[in-house]
């Protein structure tokens, strides 16, 4: 047997070589001669001692960066035990569990100190993985999946036998589970969604990110658990099933359940397998642009392109102003007449054999068009083009033909290639080989770590080594190279040192004493909890992964996006809450994108009890004289806007705060222990360094002396009593806005704020005669009139005051949009200009108030000064507005018009007034030479010629509605 050289460069070369063989589907790879292998890599004798720039480029297939790992990657070992001065005994104990040494070597007295990682269940492996890949992996685990913790158990066999053995094991797996494994191409939209999910739900806490980082790349090399070449191992369906509940096949919990929905699992699987070498039903290309009819897609650069599983939308990055082109081949089983239907909004068309069959172009709502063509049996190029300008977007493509009823064209009738499918040799089950494999499974050591799983027979491993306490650390698996008939782990020097140190400690009975705290640490190390959480001085999201931890609202800061500090977690959380987080995926931070993984109760051991035993501080709540009901009431007041205003930042029972949405106060009671909460409220910083949670009792003193005699302990007790009510608690003051209606008396009331229709700078005025208006000081227009109640300022005057507010009253009338004045060359035909505000030459100058505090709005239009003075007036028919508009100019403008109204229909009445859209009655008083004009340019408009006399012009409009 020739020992493989262990330096990196050769190993990488081998890996790529095997990759090529695997892709080519050459099952004979197992028996390729070692000499040929070595010859192929002979000239690649460069040693890689440093990371070169080229190696920092992510591997296009795996996304992994940096040198190929040359050792089994155990994340916590790499992070905490692989540097100089690290605790080597603890590191070795970790490896003894993660490399499953104890499956051959009894741990005996040391078993408490080792968290054993069980290998994946293999009964179903032929159903979820490509058996060829499985064989390849057994043949050369470290070359096939660099960094794997699986040892080579057949490495001592001669080369040729090794290939046969791996093949036999693959056949064995196939014999116990018929392969239904089939590759499929991922859908482009699913890939995009999966990429986002993969990088935000927490996958990249343990696995390498697969897209560009802003952080330095070097640091993520070691701590990433390698994924290997997923796209030659899994299909989308099988990986998706795995991700939905990884514990089914990997009961060790090292790959935890991430609480993914089936759709999310499918998306992530699609993303991870985006380079799967399987033909997709269709190719799509996505374009952006606003078109009234089909653009020449050939001349456009697609924004993105990829595989599509059917004709239809879903790949687009935005919902307006885009186009799509789908290309593929239609598989026609029988010659005959075929009919095609396109339903779309906006335009679509269909080509077959490069000839147009259905043309449904132009801008339109969802309508259907069809076309017919005769097709021969075989493959026909098919193309659908589609574009969307604005509004709804719809595209469906149906067909019917001989023995095919009208239906959506199914994926099975489409292919993105015209190359014949299915010529890849299938892996035919060889019963003799399988029987050999069955023997090997028990005899070479597979069964030491792997079981087949529920529903399969129990296989007993025939391999056993001496107990850990009797091992010679210079021999066997641990010698370099491994000596004798032992599994090859490809251990690094540091790993050997650590394992030796751990074995020495076991041998000499010098293992560190276990305590609840050390057991928590042991579990958190084995399950890599430290990748997300810090506890004490250890762990937490490393700087290189920080940017992948995000939240719905960036304003929540680090507390919203980074998993919480676990220091003192057993003190903080109630028993039930701790249990719910660990075993029921309880979500306390809905805004945080990273999920709390579920590791399986068996793998967590007694972590909850140990956290409690290690963390709980023996602190009693201070005695207070208040009965629960009294305390609860005071707590209600303290939490609300007239107390400590907790509700400024915290959601309350799903009612949003007016600021950020910090953790819901209604779940605090069931989560937090009162004994902890009392101390936390006194000094939040001591428990969560850097928190934005303010110290409500600075220096232990109250800031609300009026509540419960200003006694700090009684107040904190009150808050806790109130929170203990949970979702049944009475809603605190300030959570739901109360009305702050502005009442108009004998004088007008002006209100300025974010107003509906009148805009962010809007000015609302309520008048004594119970009519109201809103003026837009950007466009200089009277925007809205209404009657009755004026305005409710509560939205703006409570909390932070976000959002636009409309009138409080009724009979709301929106007035004409756009600029009030314009020069028109032709009073009948020139369209009213679209420009408004500063762009059109306007400048707001403010307002003056009359004796009843009614404003005259003042603005400039070019060199003209305009005064706009609406007043309320009581008439027999009810209240009206009389609006006097005055213009002053040194050089009066010619052809100047004022637009009084616009609408669908403007009718002149017998009394000289106008009725706009049957609702507004408008009377206009002007000079004889400036009679209002009704014109139709697009819509109907009522315009008033502005005639100057001595540098002044004036007209009066009376609004009744």
């Amino acid at each position, binding site marked *: 047997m020739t020992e493989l050289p262990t330096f990196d460069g050769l190993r990488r070369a081998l890996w790529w070589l095997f990759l090529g063989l695997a892709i080519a589907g050459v099952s004979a790879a197992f028996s390729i001669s070692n000499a040929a292998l070595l010859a192929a890599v002979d000239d690649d004798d460069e040693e890689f001692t440093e990371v070169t720039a080229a190696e920092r480029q992510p591997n296009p297939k795996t996304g992994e960066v940096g040198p190929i790992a040359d050792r089994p990657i155990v994340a916590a070992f790499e992070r905490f035990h692989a540097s100089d001065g690290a605790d080597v005994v603890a590191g070795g104990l970790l490896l003894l569990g993660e490399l499953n040494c104890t499956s051959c070597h009894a741990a005996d007295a040391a078993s408490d100190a080792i968290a054993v990682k069980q290998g994946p269940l293999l009964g179903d492996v032929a159903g979820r993985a490509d058996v060829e890949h499985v064989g390849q992996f057994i043949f050369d685990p470290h070359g096939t999946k660099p960094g794997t913790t699986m040892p080579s158990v057949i490495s001592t066999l001669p080369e040729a036998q090794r290939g046969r053995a791996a093949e036999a094991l693959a056949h064995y797996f196939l014999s116990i589970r018929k392969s239904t494994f089939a590759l499929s191409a991922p859908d482009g939209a699913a890939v995009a969604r999966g990429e986002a999910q993969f990088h935000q739900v927490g996958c990249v806490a343990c696995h390498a990110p697969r897209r560009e980082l802003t952080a330095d790349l070097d640091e993520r090399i070691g701590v990433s658990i390698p994924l290997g070449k997923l796209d030659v191992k899994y299909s989308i369906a099988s990986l998706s099933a795995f991700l939905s509940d990884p514990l089914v096949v990997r009961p060790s919990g090292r790959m935890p359940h991430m609480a993914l929905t089936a759709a999310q699992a499918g998306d992530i699987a699609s993303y991870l397998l985006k380079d799967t070498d399987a033909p997709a039903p269709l190719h799509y290309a996505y374009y952006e642009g606003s078109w009234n009819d089909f653009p020449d897609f050939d001349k456009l650069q697609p924004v993105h392109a990829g595989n599509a599983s059917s004709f239809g939308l879903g790949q687009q990055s935005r919902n307006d102003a885009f186009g799509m082109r789908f290309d593929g081949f239609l598989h026609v089983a029988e010659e005959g007449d075929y009919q095609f239907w396109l339903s779309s909004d906006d335009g679509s068309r269909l080509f077959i054999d490069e000839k147009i069959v259905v043309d449904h172009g132009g801008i339109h709502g969802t309508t259907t068009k069809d076309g017919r063509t005769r097709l021969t049996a075989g493959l026909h190029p098919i193309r659908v083009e589609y574009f969307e300008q604005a509004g709804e977007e719809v595209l469906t493509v149906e067909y019917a033909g001989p023995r095919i009823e009208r239906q959506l064209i199914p994926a099975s009738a489409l292919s993105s290639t015209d190359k014949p499918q299915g010529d890849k040799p299938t892996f035919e089950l060889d019963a003799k080989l399988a029987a050999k494999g069955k023997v090997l499974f028990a005899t070479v050591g597979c069964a030491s770590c792997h079981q087949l799983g529920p529903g399969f027979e129990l296989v007993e491993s025939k391999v056993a080594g001496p107990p850990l306490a009797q091992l010679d650390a210079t021999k066997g698996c641990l010698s370099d190279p491994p000596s004798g008939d032992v599994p090859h782990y490809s251990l690094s020097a540091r790993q050997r040192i650590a394992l030796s140190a751990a074995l020495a400690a076991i041998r000499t009975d010098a293992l560190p004493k276990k305590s609840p705290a050390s057991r928590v640490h042991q579990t958190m190390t084995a399950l890599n909890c430290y990748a997300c959480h810090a506890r004490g001085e250890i762990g937490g999201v490393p700087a290189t992964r920080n940017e992948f931890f995000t939240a719905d609202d*960036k*304003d*929540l800061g680090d507390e919203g996006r980074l998993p919480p500090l676990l220091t003192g977690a057993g003190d903080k959380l109630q028993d039930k809450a701790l249990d719910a987080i660990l075993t029921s995926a309880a979500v306390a931070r809905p805004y945080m994108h990273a999920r709390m993984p579920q590791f399986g109760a068996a793998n967590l051991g007694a972590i909850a009890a140990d956290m409690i035993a290690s963390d709980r501080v023996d602190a009693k709540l201070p005695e207070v004289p208040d009965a629960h009901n009294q305390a609860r009431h005071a707590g209600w007041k303290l939490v609300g806007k007239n107390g*400590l205003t907790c509700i400024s930042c915290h959601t309350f029972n799903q009612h949003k705060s007016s600021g950020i949405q910090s953790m819901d106060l209604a779940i605090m009671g069931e989560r937090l222990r009162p004994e902890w909460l009392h101390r936390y409220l006194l000094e939040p*910083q001591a428990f969560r360094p850097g928190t934005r949670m*303010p110290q409500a009792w600075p220096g232990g003193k109250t*800031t609300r002396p009026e509540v419960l005699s200003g006694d700090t302990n009684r107040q904190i007790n009150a808050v806790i009593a109130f929170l203990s009510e949970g979702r049944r608690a009475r809603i605190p003051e300030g959570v739901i806005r109360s009305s702050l209606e502005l009442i108009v008396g004998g004088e007008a009331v002006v209100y300025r*704020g974010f107003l509906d229709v009148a805009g*962010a700078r809007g000015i609302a005025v309520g008048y004594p005669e119970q009519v109201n208006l809103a003026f837009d000081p950007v466009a200089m227009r009277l925007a809205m009139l209404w009657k009755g109640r004026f305005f409710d300022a509560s939205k703006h005057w409570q909390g932070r005051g976000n959002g636009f507010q409309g009138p409080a009253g009724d009979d709301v009338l929106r007035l004409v949009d756009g600029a009030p004045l314009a020069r028109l060359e032709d009073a009948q035909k020139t369209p009213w200009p679209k420009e408004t505000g500063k762009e059109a030459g306007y400048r707001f100058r403010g307002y003056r108030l009359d004796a009843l505090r009614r404003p005259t709005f003042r603005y400039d239009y070019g060199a003209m000064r305009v005064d706009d003075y609406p007043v309320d007036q009581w008439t027999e028919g009810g209240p009206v507005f009389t609006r006097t508009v005055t213009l002053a100019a040194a050089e009066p403008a010619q052809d100047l018009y004022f637009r009084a109204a616009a609408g669908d229909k403007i009718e002149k009445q017998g009394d000289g007034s106008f009725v706009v859209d049957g609702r507004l009655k408008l009377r206009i008083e002007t000079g004889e030479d400036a009679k209002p004009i009704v014109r139709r340019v697009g819509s109907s408009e009522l315009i008033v010629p502005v005639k100057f006399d001595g540098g002044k012009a004036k007209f009066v409009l009376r609004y009744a509605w």
Partner: protein
Amino acid sequence: MPRILTSIVLVALFAAAACAADRPPTEDDYYPMLRMPIPPEAYLEAGGLEWLADGRLAVCTRRGEIWMVENPTVAEPEKMKFSLFASGLHEPLGLVERDGWIYVTQRGEVTRLKDEDGDGRADVLETVADGWGLSGDYHEYAFGSKFDRDGNMWVVLCLTGSFTSNVPYRGWCLRITPDGEVIPTCSGIRSPGGIGSNADGDVFYTDNQGPWNGTCGLKHLRPGGFMGHPIGNRWYDEPLAADAMGSRPVEPKTNSRIAAEEKRVAELVPTAVMFPYNAMGQSAAGIACDMSGGKFGPFAKQLFVGDQTHSTVMRVFLEKIDGVYQGVCFPFRSGFGSGSLSLQFAPNGAMFVGGTDRGWGARGGKPYALDRLDWTGRTPFEIHEMRAKSDGFELTFTEPVDTATAGDGKSYEMKTYTYIYRSDYGSPEVDHTTPTIKEIRVAADGRSVRLVIDGLQLGHVHDLRAAGVRSKTGLPLLHDKSYYTLNRIPAAQ
């Protein structure tokens, strides 16, 4: 006169003796606080304050009103009178008087108001300038300054949100000329809490913890400068900005440090004083400079900065090294009635502090308040100034120190840290170091102490606790914590 003086001295001596004997002195012993008697009809969420030429105090409120306070400095609250001058303004946060006009900065414009008919209420409201966008997000606050030496008002505009600038000049400082013209002056603003000048007339504003602001800080609005948050830099393309500000700065790198990015981004103005988060406050707000010439005590020409969350006022001493401002902050006074937002000195040395806790809670506990600080005439024992030296710091004191304790290394503790300069919200304290105080030299007059330090850290807060230092009369420092932001190390003299 001599008799009055004597009695003041006696009272002071008596009080000092009483303090030393009975209990450690408190802030109340030197700067007692008077809660102004706000009438129930005034919901006085004070966004801006101004001392008027006629001796009244003007207050603009977040609910859009302007109230006048007559006799604001008298001892007897019942002699004060509040009257409504204007209403219907849009969340104004800046108030200043000139030539009989009251200038107010609303969200969308600077407006000047006048009472022409003499009924005590404004009847003319003229728009002076509205050359910036307002899209309708609550973050879009506008803080207006007093007039600068050229008669300009400076307006700092909050971003649209923490991470967005949707309309022109959100995240900028604009100068408004006396003619109402708008001059873009600084970019890079996130979320201001106040604006004000130092004694030399240079303008500063406070910015708040959030993206590109690891903690709250006081920043110098150097014309042409970029204050740190790059999202508003899209407006460099606006014609006015192009004229006034030149080309757009290079983008700062996230997850860096200000001291490092200063070298890449030429326009980046380092934060003059970082306010350590939680230690000094959580929401830096209004700024006022003591120009009373000693009527407010020993801190003439120093800056006072409110903190809304903690309901406090901090004290700031600034120095300019190689053209860059830096300096130190000290706790000054706590216990204001609501969240300290607006600060204003009266010519007699009284300091007015207006507050609100709406939307962002405050320790003070009241939804709004207006408080007055008066100096009793007794000098608190405080670090007066802290100056950077080539090899350490120099501390000066308001009273002579006890040579033994001030010269003892055990009287001082120093650590340093800084904050990540990054696009994410806020930052923890990072890069902690512990410098060594190698030598302590107490001046012969006991008024100053030189700390010779090994391990000064550029770009770090130098967090100094001088708990052991005693005055000559045996008093501890009223506030023994100070935080110096070291942007530049001065050359040896």
